[in-house]
């Protein structure tokens, strides 16, 4: 039981940590491209605003899913239920 909890905790850390790192790299790339585009064509900023928000959501989707799975394992671990 303790081993399952310990390995689950490590898994949760990896899920959230690697997911956050990937999302940060993606968001950094997109934000630099947005600033680049805005500097070249400032009149496009209002239109790009909506697209940037959509893409932020899309880039974050994998991280959000990882957080959801991690929360599930943290608060309602199905592996412990199988053991019990």
């Amino acid at each position: 039981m303790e081993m399952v909890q310990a390995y689950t905790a490590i898994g949760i850390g990896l899920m959230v940590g690697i997911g956050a790192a990937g999302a940060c790299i993606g968001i950094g790339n997109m934000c630099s491209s947005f600033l680049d585009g805005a500097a070249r064509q400032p009149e496009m900023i209002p239109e790009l605003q909506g697209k940037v928000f959509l893409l932020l959501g899309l880039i974050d989707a994998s991280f959000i899913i990882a957080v959801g799975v991690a929360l599930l394992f943290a608060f309602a671990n199905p592996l412990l239920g199988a053991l019990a």
Partner: protein
Amino acid sequence: MNDKETGLTAENTFGGMLRSQLLATVAVAVIAFVISGINASLSAVAGGLSVVLAAFIASKMAVSKRKDAASVLGSMLKAELIKIFLIILFLYIAIKGLDNKLVPLALIVGLAAAAIISGATISKRSKQLKI
């Protein structure tokens, strides 16, 4: 061609995104109900609504009054941060609230569908612009 001419304002884009997410959540909930019953359906709705509600609140905060690139980007990133915190909060409430009735797979599928489907909106908007 600016955003007033095309109708592609930030508010329209956010509205389209939220509609797509709600549709995806309802679709997953109906499929979960057919396959596994009411508990799976409730779990899928809880997972999907966590994302939709957080995205709705964040979209209200994302629109910047100032029009320079740095403040637009700053308000976007702030809205995204709040969105993630709200999703974690809503998911915690859903997982604790549903407790024994929770169907994990349905919750994750509802969450994933709502989170990923927002990307479909951008292709729809691009088709309107014909780019």
